[in-house]
């Protein structure tokens, strides 16, 4: 083959490799035209793409020095075979890897989830002190639970080699993304904003990343940004100096010279290193901001701010040279962004942004200015840290945007039903959480007046149903259905929701959120105001104010509340007492947590309706505890705690609580009747006074209740198929 021919083959292969496999055939067909030998040559090379991925990834010496034991299963030098059990993890396939230890996709057989196992490099694994420090360090990392920080699930050891069990991510690194050139402004701001979220959370816990660079920023296939190797950067890339470097994530790096000259470790990093890092001084949060500045510079211009022929010169430039103005390289950049980047890249850290929050605020301001409000899908990803409120806002916001300029925009959706989230944990104990999250989602959506939301109780009958969505939608008279699943693994909750428009059968929206359970209440408040800002045009000012009003809730209170909801849904006397206990506990934890009062009110209401309504008093009264018997004596006496709780929930909730409370009550009524609907009601007209409260007027004594029939509580009527928010409290 002549050099010219080879160049052609080389170029065609390269072009083809950049295409999706599906597009290659057509591309090559056209590119090779009639040159069949050329076509064959290219095709035959491309055939080896997959196989070549792991080929020669370990240098020659390493592949020779593998001992027999390690030839087959040594985690360091040889690829672990698929199916191998490493503790509770079953190896599925190798993922990338390269010089710094290997990474595998694995299955956690206890929790039935996919994870990534990252083995430490052989060198550091031999150093007992390094391993000990590594383990100590790794223990500190789970404190960084954040949607934009790659989660460290666990650490383990296999044949003497420690490994990390990490969240399995699909997508590409920012480094790979940047190979295709600078990012468009919208994407840049989106990614930057998510990185600052992660850094802000870490810095709040006094953890400095120390190695922020595109290779450590991962863009998931769903558009979420994950910062990798938080607090572990040193451990993973520079095993030799683990001893000094890993003691604390905030400690000083060893003198710069070594950091810079060690092969394979620091060279790629030098360009993002802050001046103080290069000088070997102590690093702090502002050092990360410098590195982020360098990363932003590259995202904006496609070039590094400091890039010289050698790492040594690069470091020299970091210490002394002013970077070229980003707008010289990309004139389309907003002036503000250039200002932010240059401020982050100030040599003197006191002249830089002093906190991540400052940079984040600037980015946010620019984002609002630059991005049109229609970029709602991006907005929902941006705020992916929120499970509930984000869903609650994003869905209606999506639904409510009227037909846009594009003719293919679907007609706006005016009504929606939230089907019970499927509990994918495989653990019946988590049912309460699935129900609780469903309720929270329904309740939050219910606050937007332009949207009709089917009450949770009505939607509950479709729990685990096999009915087609269209049928459910017809029965509930809604335009769209939101459904999804949740899973809880230890303290993490993962919720994924899809919104399907019935008329077109199209999935309008879908998102997956994963967060620490502890943070669920925090997401609500954190995200509420931000999302409200994003979509303020679509939501009335009052509603926006309500959302902005959302307050953080104590985690225990939140969990107790969810458990209480779960119990109260069972609508048996015993369960209701359990629920009352849970709600009380929630109130003890957080005396200002309105939903707990609403739940309490609901329970007392139920005690009056279900228990009195479902069986003749002659049967139930002797069995009831004295407390309850007293309540039966007077309707007013059981109404009192209900009303007290409701009043309390309304007064402390300012806008949030009444709707919650009303949701609680309106939910309770059809559910009550559902209880009765399974078995014909047996009580007679003699129990008249109680009927007032327990049964809608006009229903005969043996009528089976339809789930969406008239409902009534304390004299207020609502119409069939009615919504959460329209039922009122009197």
């Amino acid at each position, binding site marked *: *083959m002549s*050099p010219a021919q*080879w160049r052609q083959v*080389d170029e065609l*292969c*390269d072009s083809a*490799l950049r295409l999706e496999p599906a597009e290659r055939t057509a591309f090559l067909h056209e590119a090779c035209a009639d040159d069949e030998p050329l076509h064959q040559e290219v095709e*035959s*090379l*491309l*055939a*080896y*793409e997959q*196989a*070549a991925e792991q*080929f*020669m990834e370990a*240098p*020659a*010496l*390493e*592949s*020779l*020095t*593998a*001992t*027999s*034991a*390690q*030839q087959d299963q040594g985690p*360091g*030098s040889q690829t672990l075979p698929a199916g191998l059990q490493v503790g509770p993890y079953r190896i599925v396939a190798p993922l990338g890897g390269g*010089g710094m230890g290997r990474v595998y996709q694995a299955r956690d057989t206890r929790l039935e989830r996919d994870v990534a196992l990252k083995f430490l*490099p*052989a*060198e550091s694994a*031999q150093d007992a002190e390094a391993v000990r420090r590594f383990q100590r360090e790794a223990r500190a990392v789970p404190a960084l639970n954040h949607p934009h920080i790659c989660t460290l699930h666990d650490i383990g050891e296999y044949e*003497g080699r420690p490994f990390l069990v990490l969240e399995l991510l699909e997508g590409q690194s920012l480094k790979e993304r940047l*190979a295709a050139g600078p990012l468009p402004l919208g994407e840049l701001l989106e990614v930057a904003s998510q990185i600052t979220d992660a850094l802000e959370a870490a810095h709040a816990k006094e953890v400095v990343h120390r190695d922020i660079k595109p290779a450590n920023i991962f863009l998931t296939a769903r558009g979420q940004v994950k910062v990798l190797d938080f607090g572990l950067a040193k451990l993973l890339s520079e095993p*030799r100096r683990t001893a000094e470097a890993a003691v604390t994530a905030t400690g000083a790096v060893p003198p710069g010279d070594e950091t810079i*000259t*060690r*092969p*394979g470790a620091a*060279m*790629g990093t030098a360009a993002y290193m802050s001046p103080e890092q290069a000088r070997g001084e102590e690093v702090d949060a502002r050092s990360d901001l410098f590195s982020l500045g360098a990363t932003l510079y590259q995202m904006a211009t496609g070039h590094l701010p400091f890039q010289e*022929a*050698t*790492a*040594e*010169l690069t470091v020299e430039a970091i210490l002394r040279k002013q970077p070229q103005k980003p707008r010289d390289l990309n004139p389309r950049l907003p002036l503000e962004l250039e200002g932010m980047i240059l401020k982050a890249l100030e040599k003197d850290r006191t002249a830089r942004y002093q906190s991540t929050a400052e940079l984040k605020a600037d980015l946010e301001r620019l984002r609002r200015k630059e991005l049109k409000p229609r970029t709602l899908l991006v907005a929902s990803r941006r705020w992916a840290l929120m499970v509930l409120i984000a869903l609650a806002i994003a869905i209606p916001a999506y639904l409510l945007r009227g037909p846009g300029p594009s003719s293919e925009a679907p007609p706006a959706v005016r009504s929606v039903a939230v089907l019970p989230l499927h509990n994918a944990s495989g653990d019946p104990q988590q049912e309460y959480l699935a129900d609780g999250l469903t309720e929270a989602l329904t309740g939050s959506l219910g606050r937007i007046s332009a949207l009709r939301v089917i009450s949770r109780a009505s939607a509950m009958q479709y729990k685990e149903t096999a009915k087609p969505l269209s049928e459910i939608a017809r029965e509930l008279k809604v335009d769209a259905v939101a459904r999804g699943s949740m899973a809880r693994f230890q303290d993490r909750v993962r919720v994924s929701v899809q919104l399907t428009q019935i008329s077109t059968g199209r999935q309008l929206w879908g998102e997956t959120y994963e967060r620490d359970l502890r943070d669920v209440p925090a997401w609500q408040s954190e995200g509420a105001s931000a999302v409200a800002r994003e979509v303020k045009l679509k939501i009335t000012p009052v509603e926006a104010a309500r959302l902005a009003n959302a307050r953080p809730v104590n985690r225990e209170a939140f969990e107790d509340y969810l458990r209480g909801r779960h119990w109260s849904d069972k609508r048996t006397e015993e369960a209701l007492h359990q629920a009352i206990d849970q709600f009380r506990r929630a109130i003890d934890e957080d005396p200002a947590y309105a939903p707990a009062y609403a739940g309490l009110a609901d329970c007392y209401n139920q005690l009056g309706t279900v228990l009195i309504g479902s069986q003749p008093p002659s049967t139930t009264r002797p069995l009831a505890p004295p407390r309850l018997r007293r309540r039966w004596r007077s309707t007013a006496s059981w109404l009192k705690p209900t009303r007290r709780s409701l009043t309390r929930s309304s007064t402390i909730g300012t806008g949030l609580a009444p709707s919650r409370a009303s949701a609680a009550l309106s939910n309770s009524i059809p559910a009550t009747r559902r209880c009765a609907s399974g078995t014909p009601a047996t009580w007679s007209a003699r129990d008249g006074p109680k009927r007032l409260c327990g049964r809608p007027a006009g229903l005969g004594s043996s009528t089976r209740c339809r789930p969406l029939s008239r409902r009534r509580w304390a004299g207020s009527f609502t119409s069939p198929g009615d919504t959460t928010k329209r039922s009122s409290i009197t």
Partner: protein
Amino acid sequence: MASGAPQDITGLLRAWGRGDQAALERLIPLVNRELRRMARRCLQRQGPDPLLETAALVNEAYVRLIDVKQVGWRDRAHFFALCAQIMRGILVDYARTRRYAKRGGGAAHVSLDEALVVSQERSSDLVAIDDALNALSKTDPRKGQVVELRFFGGLSVEETAEVLRVSPQTVLRDWKLAKMWLLRELSREKLHEPRTMATG
């Protein structure tokens, strides 16, 4: 310090960096001796002993042989490139000997001993890779160099880019295509001739 005075070697390296080819000729045996000694030590290890990585080995050689304060980055790149070349020689020789020993004289002749358990298969692979790499270098010299630096020299993508004065993207692109090319070559070899004939 096992071999020549660091000052001499450093001087030679710098002279070579300035274009003095004679310096290179004097430099090679010195570096070769040290690397060979280290590689041997490394290859003779057994069991759960540390697996010394090529990158670490080459770096150790660098620190041992060169007075780091006196050389610039470019000299260092030169040094690594040189090491990669030397390592290739050492390892392929070693693999070839082993393969011959295994095939010809049986286990008794294995000089590096029972202590070292190296798969014969792997040794053969290394020899075959070396042959295929020679062929690749004829077709596309830069890709050949990328493979030599990365695979035999243990250099990172960035370092390889430094040595070859190209962008890391180019190195990655070359690396990927070169691996595909080599693998195809090796597969052909397996198809067309018996394995025992693969010696180059």
